[in-house]
């Protein structure tokens, strides 16, 4: 602790959201500073780098209006923290944790650093309790469990938000029909348009459980995009591990987060990595995604559903690529299925849930779950291969057996993948799948 607060007017330069300050006596990495603009308004900033008495500060918010002579920077001696209290539930905040629902700020019980702390791997509980989403492609083939992080890889123009909304409305823990078991939702919007935000707003209202929202719209400051998910996750950890709630964290759109990261990194004149994204993007994303999980001997859980848009529909782009290396699987949407009117347009072949194995089977869903899922995968994959062949030789040039598998692939997409607005329980999904396999006399089930 410092005994005196200290403030400086020794700004050397301002570059975009970054500010260099000279002749600083004491500064901490990650320390929060208050910046008083010449016109009297204030903004917050964070210390990014210290080189002797020169300090690099990232301005959270708009840096327009800063000058070199009259602006003042006040050091607060604390790292960025989030106010915590059960009173956050039902509230809507901006990316700097200011209420934007026309209600006063709540009084926090305590404060916690937004960067969080890594969870000791031995203290982690193995995630194995199913969350039923009501979507067959997830429940049947890529099962989600509590404490998992499962991103949705979307493409521009695909209905990722409709899928997210359907999950928000329909998610239940376990196969029993207990409503609201994902008992709180933390919704983090990053760089959304007003139109998209309005859609999610309605979905949150329709939802039965509690929610907290952190909203950073496209017009809001870029640096807040880096902060909002950390606020959201700090609140989620509080709700889960202090208050025993099962928390579902929905973050959209992570592509905007990564672009903000690139923007700040470039302003810092760091060496760019692939496609200009910084080399530490993997570690940075991990510092968010790894906060999902469960703790031994503690009731709650943090489950994460980040949504990202693959630039140019390219799954090897650094954003989906690094995300896929950190998360426990991915749900991949397909433009082709969408164009054929299939909802949700989930392409099950590249989709995967790594934690599925423990969430399904005897005592959890059904004993035949794995066998049914494998049979669907195997035959659908063959069917998809045959479609390419069909494009060359034509349907008439194929054997009866091949044509049969082709028909199966079509029926699978129409009957299992497609479900419109209908909610299916795991049991219903498995029954429908089994009937389909039996109808086509395809083995495995």
């Amino acid at each position, binding site marked *: 602790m410092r005994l005196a607060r200290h403030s400086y007017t020794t700004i050397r330069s301002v570059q975009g959201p970054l500010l260099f300050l000279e002749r600083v*006596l*004491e*500064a*901490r*990495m*990650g*320390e929060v500073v208050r910046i008083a603009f010449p016109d009297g308004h204030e903004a917050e900033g964070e210390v990014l*780098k*210290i*080189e*002797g008495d020169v300090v690099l500060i990232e301005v959270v918010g708009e840096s327009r209006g800063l000058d070199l002579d009259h602006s003042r920077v006040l050091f607060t001696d604390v*790292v960025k923290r989030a106010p915590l209290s059960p009173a956050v539930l039902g509230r809507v905040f901006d990316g700097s944790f200011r209420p934007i629902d026309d209600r006063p700020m709540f009084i926090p019980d305590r404060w916690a650093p937004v*960067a969080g*702390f*890594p*969870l*000791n*791997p*031995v203290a*982690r509980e*193995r*995630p194995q309790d199913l969350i039923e989403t009501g979507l067959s492609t997830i429940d049947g083939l890529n099962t989600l469990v509590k404490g*998992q992080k499962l991103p949705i890889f979307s493409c521009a123009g695909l209905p990722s938000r409709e899928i997210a909304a359907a999950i928000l409305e329909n998610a239940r823990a376990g196969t029993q029909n207990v409503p609201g078991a994902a008992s709180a939702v933390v919704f983090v919007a990053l760089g959304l348009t007003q139109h998209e935000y309005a859609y999610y707003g309605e979905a949150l209202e329709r939802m039965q459980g509690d929610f907290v929202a952190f909203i950073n719209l496209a017009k809001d400051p870029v640096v807040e995009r880096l902060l909002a998910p950390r606020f959201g996750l700090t609140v989620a950890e509080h709700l889960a591990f202090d208050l025993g709630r099962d928390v579902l964290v929905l973050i959209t759109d992570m592509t905007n987060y990564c672009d903000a990261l690139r923007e700040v990194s470039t302003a810092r004149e*760091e*060496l760019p*990595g*692939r496609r200009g994204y910084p*080399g*530490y993007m*993997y*570690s940075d994303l*991990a510092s968010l995604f*790894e*906060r999902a999980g469960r*703790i*031994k001997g503690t009731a709650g859980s943090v489950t994460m559903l980040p949504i990202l848009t693959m630039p140019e529909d390219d799954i*090897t*782009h*650094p954003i989906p*690529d*690094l995300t*896929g*290396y*950190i998360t426990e699987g*991915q749900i991949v949407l397909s433009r082709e299925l969408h164009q054929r009117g299939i909802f949700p347009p989930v392409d099950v*072949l*590249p989709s*995967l849930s*790594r*934690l599925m194995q*423990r969430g399904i089977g005897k005592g959890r869903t059904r004993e035949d779950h794995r066998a049914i899922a*494998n049979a669907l*995968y195997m035959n659908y*994959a063959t069917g998809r291969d045959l479609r390419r*062949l069909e494009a060359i*030789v034509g349907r008439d*040039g*194929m*054997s009866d057996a*091949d044509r049969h598998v082709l028909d199966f692939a079509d029926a699978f997409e129409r009957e299992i993948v497609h479900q419109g607005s209908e909610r299916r329980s795991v049991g219903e999904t498995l029954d429908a799948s089994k009937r389909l396999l039996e109808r086509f006399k395809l083995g495995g089930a």
Partner: protein
Amino acid sequence: MSGRITAITGPTVSVDVPGLKLHECVTVGAAGLMGEVVRLERGRAVVQVYESTRGLAVGEPAAGTGTELCVRLGPGLIGQMFDGLQRPLVAMAAQHGPFIRGGGAKVPPWGARTLRFVPLKKSGERIAPNEVAGYIEEGPFRHAVLASGEGGTIERIVNGEFEAEAPVFSLSDGRQGFAFHSWPVRVPRPYRRKLSRVEPLVTGQRCIDFLFPLARGGSAIFPGGFGTGKTILEQSIAKLADVDIVVYVGCGERGNEMAEMLDDFATLSDPWHQQPLMSRTIIAVNTSNMPVAAREASIYTAVTMAEYYRDMGYGVLLLADSLSRWAEALREISSALEEMPGEEGYPTYLASRMAEFVARAGVVETLDGRTGSLTVMLSISPPGGDFSEPVTQACLRTTGSFFMLDTDLAHRRHFPAINWFQSFSLYEHEVSARFDAAVSPDWSALRQETRTLLQREARLREVAEIVGTEGLQDADRLLMRTTEAIRRNFLMQNSYTEDAFSTPQQTLERIAQILERHRTASGRLEKGELLETILRESA
């Protein structure tokens, strides 16, 4: 010697402590965070800090410790789970709760305890350099305590119980021998000489054992995009491989996966010794959200512990998941040091560091004349699944086996998704010759036959793409039936069922059966029988 922090950039800080040495450990900040000197200039040393630098302030104290980053070696490592700096995670969770808050002195791997020493020498006897004075038992493993330096006459030697940190013998010139010692992680442990002998290392994976066999003391990499089953394959091998000791490093990977692995390892037993898996396993873990500099150190911590058991004459397998995360940590530190970047921003010394690391594998004659082996298996996560990236390419030049994990195979749930055309093993001829002698003289011949069939299938597929399978000749259609059986019933292996483990004998029987059927069917086809009849009968 002490001084102050003068600058902080990402995971590195500069300090003005005088008299530091390169790679010396330094404590920085009021909280006493651990770090290591990576660059020296007059009046300034750059330290990579093993913990989060958030909250650290310029002007806070820093002090040298006089030693390099070391691990503590001795009985009791097995069954433990450490972080990248050999801090015991279970003890840390008990002391500090579920979150790792960093700071504080290094928690020792063990508390106070007594051990049992069995002397092989008596007091008054001469002991030669590197001669065994006695041993301590850790489960089935014997920790030999050697005389260091030039040997001497034993004055006193413990028989039975002793305090773990106390000496077990002392020589007439006052020197003492201990059950425990510290070893700097970046220095390979000594041995008499490396041996160039090739013995198979059975993994229980049919595809690996049969097509791309591994050798004890060898090295292997398996690169694959996300979702290609790197971790599952690596964990299966950790569970089932025919070795004495497994050291597993989770380097920059997922926390939930480590929780799963711990759960499995505590409940499953190894098929070779019928012991719980944890009783032959050491785990070092630095998950992706733990500090980057400690991730860089974690593989060295692990390989040093592995070498320690190798030096006692055991067969040790080191598995690292994933080396790409280690390389990225190296890149992050290098960029904080503002070094000139090489390809894709990686430092230019990436390849040489990696080669140095892989060179720590091998079969050795130990200082006391035993034979120990250290096998290294590394998974690699190439960005975008593109194998032309620097980490994969640097590894390809130094390792003996290459298992390429194929995204296409993974998408159709063919696991392990090892591509049988691109993968290779430099040990294949020598190891197959061993299998010829140990399992069946047909081993190599069947292996060649399988590879030929798979190659012919690939060519036929190209034709079938154009003319359709109906347009193929009967003999070719039969071949495609057989290769499908090879893929489904032989190469594919479900790691969640009994099938996860296959002994060389079982592997051979299975492939022999498939190929025998193929030969019979081909014979009947040549005699003029209809393909449909043959297939219907054999189905």
